[in-house]
């Protein structure tokens, strides 16, 4: 149900752009106004959420400890899984952000014949996730050719590497295809694994469908219903140089692609995709486990009024003496 609703929402978005351009001829709206608004919502939304997180105090060290902590010299510390220094944290974050290390240790329990409990690691989510994120990144970088003039040389090297199969004209770019397949895998995983399906919400399906929609419309545009890339680049260069123009004759599929991208970008700050900023601000990842070496003082501690024993004795010394109680100072 969640999945079907999300699917219809994405199809609806695609139809809005298609009809808006085909029937109502709102090229200017879909080609310039909406992308600018989406980018502004994206940037302001992401920044304000990060600032909000930044204002949240994290008084104590709460890293997830996945290995032996720093201890006596003859006990081997697990430096990446339980870092105690800044360098260790940087190493841990690097592996987390670029290689999704914590997904790599995903373990599965199985009751095999015997009965015997077996532990095995499942790497499919790690592999699918890694393929998805890296190809998304490469596709995004390659798109810079539409937003720069002259195009920096390295972009062509990326594209040549990406299209090294030289299948068809225009040549198949592997990253775009893998992106679509990886997103599809991540979706099917949610549908076919009952426990994962149980915890999946519309907010999980919708971004997946949206990205699948973006990738599918891009792939259709490159290999099936061609658009005039020179006109497209005039439009995108207009966007990038803040002097928008809308050349005639760009077919509707381009506006569908662009509108889905705009929807995705505007949606990011309000959705789980904010993990792109959140991963850096996770106290369970970005703190060193040095609680035993450094005293961390709660920043909102207020001065507590105390009445020491010395003061107490000063107040009651005479009475205590009379009652025969021992006192520290005569």
């Amino acid at each position, binding site marked *: 149900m969640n999945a079907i609703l999300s699917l219809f929402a994405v199809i609806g978005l695609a139809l809005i752009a298609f009809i808006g351009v085909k029937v109502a001829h709102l090229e200017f709206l879909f080609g310039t106004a909406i992308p600018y608004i989406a*980018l502004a919502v*994206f*940037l302001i939304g*992401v*920044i304000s959420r*990060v*600032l909000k997180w*930044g*204002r*949240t*105090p*994290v008084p104590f060290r709460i890293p997830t400890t996945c290995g032996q902590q720093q201890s006596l010299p003859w006990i081997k510390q697990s430096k990446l899984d339980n870092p105690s220094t800044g360098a260790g944290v940087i190493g841990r974050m690097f592996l987390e952000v670029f290689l999704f290390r914590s997904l790599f240790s995903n373990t599965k329990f199985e009751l095999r014949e015997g009965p015997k409990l077996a532990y095995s690691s499942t790497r499919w989510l790690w592999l699918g996730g890694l393929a998805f994120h890296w190809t998304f990144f490469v596709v995004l970088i390659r798109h*810079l*050719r539409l*937003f*720069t*003039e*002259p*195009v920096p040389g390295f*972009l*062509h090297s990326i*594209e*040549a590497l990406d299209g090294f199969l*030289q299948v*068809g*004209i*225009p040549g198949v770019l592997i990253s775009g295809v893998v992106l679509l397949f990886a997103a599809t895998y991540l979706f099917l995983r949610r549908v076919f694994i009952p426990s994962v399906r149980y915890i999946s919400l519309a907010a999980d399906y919708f971004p997946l469908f949206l990205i699948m929609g973006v990738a599918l419309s891009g792939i259709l545009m490159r290999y099936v219903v*061609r*658009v*005039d*890339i*020179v*006109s497209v*680049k*005039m439009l995108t*260069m*207009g966007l*990038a*140089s*803040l002097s928008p123009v809308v050349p005639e*004759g760009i*077919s509707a599929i381009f506006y569908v692609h662009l509108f889905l991208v705009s929807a995705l970008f505007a949606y990011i700050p309000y959705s789980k995709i904010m993990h792109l*900023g959140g991963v*850096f*601000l996770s106290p369970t990842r970005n703190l060193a486990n040095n609680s035993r070496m450094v005293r961390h003082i709660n*920043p909102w501690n207020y001065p507590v009024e105390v009445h020491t024993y010395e003061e107490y004795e000063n107040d009651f010394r005479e009475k205590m003496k009379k009652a025969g109680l021992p006192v520290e100072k005569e």
Partner: protein
Amino acid sequence: MYNGGKIIVGIAIFVGLFVFPIFYNMGKPSAMPEPKLDTPVINQLDEKRCVESADYMRANHMQLLDEWRDSVLRDGNFVYESSNGKKYVMSLQNTCMHCHSNKKEFCDSCHTYANVKPYCWSCHLESKEKAL
């Protein structure tokens, strides 16, 4: 704000990446490609028409070339009938480049703009004239 310095640096890098094209392109005149049709063969044409309509060619010429290549090399079929009934020999060198003998001013002007470098020319000749 806790760890304010680091967070601000992170935000600055993030925003910088997204507005990079604006700064990169600032002050540069937009270099729209103007493919030149001024070749001896095209100048002699009665009707200045490409194999298909110009709109179609602009968006689809690579697919057309792919179709031609497959048709010639796989089916041995050399004749292409265009949508207005004219017949062309399907050949990159002998048809396209016969009319568009100015690859540098024509094909390349768009391709540089769009950052594509078709690899065809490592085998095919750019124009007959140069070959002789």
